């Protein structure tokens, strides 16, 4: 954790997943996995510090948005790789582009930390959200009751990831 972070605007999420750290790492960094849980979306990473990455909407996201009557941008999340130490640590800058007001809040900092514990992986997600109050509200799951389905933020995403890796199915399946 950097010394400059503001604790009050930092969110920390932790989940234990009965899977090897390498499997969890793949689920976070490979597009064939990233579209299968949570909000979905296809993310291609060049795991080199300074490399840009972006998340494209998956087929389900495009279909869903079309049905709801609003457009999906070609890139839904973008940012840069700050640090990559497979399968232990991934630090990213992270900007949500789904809506103009979220995009305007700019880049936040997202850290994934993986540790093996008793045959499981302890996954800790730290999201530093200084200057991004709307995004902070979104990722905390404050909009969970809205019709969009899956406004559950990181708690929901990680619960879904755990379900996928442990049972082969997501929560909706």
């Amino acid at each position: 954790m950097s010394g400059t972070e503001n604790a009050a605007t930092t969110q920390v999420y932790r989940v234990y997943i009965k899977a090897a750290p390498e499997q969890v790492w793949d689920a976070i960094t490979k597009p064939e996995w990233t579209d299968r849980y949570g909000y979905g979306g296809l993310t291609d990473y060049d795991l080199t510090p300074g490399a840009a990455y972006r998340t494209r909407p998956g087929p389900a996201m495009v279909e869903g948005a079309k049905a709801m009557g609003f457009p999906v941008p070609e890139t839904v999340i973008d940012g840069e790789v700050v640090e990559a130490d497979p399968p232990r640590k991934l630090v990213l800058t992270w900007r949500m582009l789904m809506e103009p007001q979220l995009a305007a809040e700019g880049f936040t900092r997202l850290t994934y930390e993986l540790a093996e514990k008793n045959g499981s992986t302890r996954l800790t997600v730290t999201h530093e959200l200084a200057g991004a109050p709307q995004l902070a509200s979104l990722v905390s799951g404050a909009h969970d009751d809205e019709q969009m389905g899956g406004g559950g933020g990181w708690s929901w995403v990680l619960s879904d990831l755990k379900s996928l890796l442990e049972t082969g199915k997501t929560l909706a399946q």
Partner: protein
Amino acid sequence: MVTYPGSVSDDDLVFKALADPTRRFLLDLLFARDGRTLTELESELEMSRFGVMKHLRVLEDAGLVVSRKSGRAKLHFLNPVPIRLIHDRWIDKYTERHVTALTELKAELEKDS
């Protein structure tokens, strides 16, 4: 519900941790403002430092609080994921049935009107 022997993440620990009003109060404090030190949390409670430490330990063991070092300070963060897991695996299962039952009742009642 599958339990993992030796795993720290366990529904029993979560339910036990939530069964105490002081621990729920500590979670509410972190919900209002995250990333607090023991000293900050202690100042909100009529309780010894040792008592607050004990409660935080139970919350950490249940995974509901994650502590991190920031310089010399140890900061405590609320981790909502264990509650989400209980919600997704237990509560959804039962509320869905209630909602379905009510929807069916409504359809049944409206059929004759």
